């Protein structure tokens, strides 16, 4: 489930260097990118270098990392380079050395130590009086808004008539622009991307929408850097606190209004002088796991009423029967995407996962992994408990699984019937004159983690990104 990071990471990587320069002026942005986009090891590197006076020679860094972890090291360095966080310079002795680039370093230091009143982390509302909004209310609000967005997408195809009409025009346009839905003859149809989207976990969905938003903001003349850094600012606000709108620029105010439509922030009226971030905003920089237990549970609808514990409501048996304890129309229509539903009771639907139902889902563009991860993240506590008791009683090498392995395997197999090839976009390097000439770049590509396939005999190899390898080839000449 590395998906959430990769999507936003990809977008960020595509930005030009000058954009990064502007983005990193804000401590909140530096902090959010540091926390969310970097692998563990990269975080260690940044922190170790952050307070060093002189650049750290590359050799020293190499010594610091164990030799068997070379791959992780190179991967970390590569990401840091692509995000313009780390750069290489020459030390006095003419050795190559790493340093954290400047707007990022100073901003991160500011974030850690707090200095100057940059107001990078929002301004609390001081206005007295007015009933404060409780965290529970905010969660309820966010859940309601987000479900109506999803309901708008799904409800149209699977559960017509049950449509939430209070979505703003902006939201609908954004969903359309992102090719998550299509409008044909004034009828809303969900696309393949859309199906994939609705089955993802909430954090991933929010990121997906936000990236779409930033992209579309550019199109209508808003400064994408300003929008982006405002999003990162939102992610560092505190749940249950209200913040002043006074200091915000017009672009930021406009963003604020749009985000309110998604339930990412809350304001009493569009004219209110303060706003509240909801959990959707404040958990933006967390891992999906940190979120699933909180927002996830409040968003499934099953546990919106007290008494139900945890986020899970789906029980699936080894005979492919599925029981979902929910009355949420959204969840039912999601489940119906890949299940043949059988009976419906006030708080329970039952159905069966069949070859046909899975094939139908796959034809719609849903992948087996999406189905499985949806089932996994909504698995009933009973399934998890059973799993826990099994894993203690037998300590064999079989990894514990929440879902019945027969079912997950079969869902994958059903997908494989159709999906008989795997495609990787990238670049084929060929026409090397000698084995030596071939070996060095090939090995380099493997080290930086971009190599997918190689053939020593044909002196060819296939990589996912060519920039660094090409640079390597040039440097060899």
């Amino acid at each position: 489930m590395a998906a959430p990071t990769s999507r936003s990471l990809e977008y960020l990587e595509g930005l030009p260097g000058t954009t990064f320069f502007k983005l990193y002026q804000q401590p909140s942005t530096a902090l959010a990118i540091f926390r969310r986009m970097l692998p563990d090891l990269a975080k260690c590197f940044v922190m170790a270098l952050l307070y060093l006076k002189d650049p750290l020679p590359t050799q020293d860094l190499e010594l610091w990392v164990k030799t068997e972890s070379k791959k992780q090291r190179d991967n970390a360095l590569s990401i840091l380079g692509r995000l313009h966080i780390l750069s290489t310079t020459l030390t006095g002795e003419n050795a190559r050395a790493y340093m954290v680039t400047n707007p990022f370093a100073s901003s991160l230091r500011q974030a850690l130590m707090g200095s100057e009143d940059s107001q990078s982390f929002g301004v609390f509302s001081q206005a007295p009086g007015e009933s404060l909004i409780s965290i529970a209310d905010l969660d309820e609000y966010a859940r309601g808004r987000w479900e109506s967005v999803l309901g708008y997408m799904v409800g149209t195809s699977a559960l017509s008539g049950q449509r939430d009409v209070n979505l703003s025009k902006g939201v609908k346009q954004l969903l359309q622009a992102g090719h998550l839905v299509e409008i044909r003859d004034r009828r809303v149809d969900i696309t393949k991307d859309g199906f994939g989207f609705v089955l993802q976990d909430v954090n991933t969905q929010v990121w997906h929408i936000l990236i779409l938003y930033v992209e579309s903001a550019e199109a209508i003349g808003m400064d994408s850097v300003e929008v982006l850094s405002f999003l990162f600012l939102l992610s560092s606000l505190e749940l249950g606190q209200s913040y002043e709108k006074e200091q915000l620029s017009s672009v930021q105010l406009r963003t604020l209004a749009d985000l309110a439509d998604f339930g990412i922030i809350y304001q009493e009226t569009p004219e209110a002088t303060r706003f509240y971030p909801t959990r959707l905003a404040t958990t933006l920089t967390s891992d999906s796991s940190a979120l699933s237990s909180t927002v996830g549970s409040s968003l499934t609808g099953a546990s919106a009423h007290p008494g139900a514990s945890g986020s899970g409501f789906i029980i699936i048996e080894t005979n492919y029967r599925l029981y979902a304890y929910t009355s949420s129309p959204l969840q039912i229509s999601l489940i119906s995407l890949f299940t043949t539903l059988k009976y419906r009771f006030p708080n329970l639907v039952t159905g069966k996962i069949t070859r046909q139902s899975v094939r139908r889902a796959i034809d719609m563009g849903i992948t087996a992994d999406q189905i499985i991860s949806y089932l996994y993240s909504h698995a009933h506590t009973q399934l998890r408990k059973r799993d826990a008791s099994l894993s203690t009683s037998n300590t064999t090498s079989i990894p514990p699984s929440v879902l019945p392995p027969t079912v997950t395997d079969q869902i994958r197999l059903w997908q494989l019937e159709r999906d008989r090839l795997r495609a990787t976009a990238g670049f084929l390097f060929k026409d090397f004159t000698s084995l030596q000439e071939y070996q060095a770049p090939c090995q380099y590509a493997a080290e930086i983690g971009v190599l997918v396939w190689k053939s020593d005999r044909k002196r060819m190899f296939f990589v996912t990104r060519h920039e660094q390898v090409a640079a390597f080839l040039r440097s060899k000449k």
Partner: protein
Amino acid sequence: MNSIDASEHYELGATELSPSLLTVIIDTNPHAWAALEDSLPLAKAVANILVFINAHLACNYANEVAVVASHSQKAAWLYPVHNDATSQESSDRDGDVSMNGDGGAASQTNKYRPFRMVEEQVTRKLKELMDSTHSADLRGNTSMLAGALTLALSNINRRTIAWAEEHGGASLDDAAAEGTGATGTGPSRYSASDEDERLQSRILIVSVSGSSNSAHQYIPVMNSIFACQRLHIPIDVCKLSGDAVFLQQACDATKGVYMALSEPRGLLQYLMMAFLPDQRSRRHLVLPTRIDVDFRAACFCHRRVVDIGYVCSICLSIFCEPPPGNECLTCGTPLDVGNYGSRPALIQRKKKKKKRANGASAVGTPMSRGTPTPGP
């Protein structure tokens, strides 16, 4: 056939990384800090440690922190503070403590709020601690390390169980369940297989006092160390001054990082480079450890640190001199001391391996006529 199968996706959910809980134990013994005044005053050290804590919190949204002061006469919580009269905090699921007692500072929000809350509380509690210290308390020149370690461990245990309960998932429920049931068979509770799935805890001790003063805490400190070893909690030690016999053993036993800073001024850089990486990152890094660990122990009778002593053959208690009446102070076994005063006979070379296996205990029992037999 079927070179394309989806088998690489089998570890579903295993890629989700659990957060880590860092417990910092600050040695606040005023004597020792006074000696360091020139190079690194306490205020500056605390400021450095706070930046380090912020860096830890910055690494992951769900990372948690706890700070304990090991003072001259007592150990005290600096963060999070429970049962504080001024605020009715309750650690919520993210481990942040909601505080309502800081109305005044609310306007300056140029700092990420979780960072600010830790800082404010740590400085406030530290000041309270210092203000409440009377000159009478200072006589000992000691530090309540054992108490601080115990506080840290109980907090870690509580958070681990709470975290496991919240995140329900695979094989974590049982850790909590076993904790309450009487079936707890030690290691299986925190078995290595789910290491990545539970809260990653570690302890950092910033130490300034010499340990020869704290030899009277030898037994409780060693017990805490063994508890950490069992629970796979590394103890890191950042030694600013003084010597630390037991702390070296702590790092050695728990596979933590030990560093004695030759230049205390550079504290922050040391902290950031050597002590920030959590257990997961440490697998990839070459960490500073000590090779020449001081394995000396303290005797049970006078709490002196001894090179060579006497060991009860029944319960392995260590004594610096034969116990009065030749009866073990711990288990009461009458001991036959024999040639008291003679140095143990050293057998050349061969013994080397054995010596190491004996580890912490002193070299040997003086013996003359074989093993002393328990009394008639």
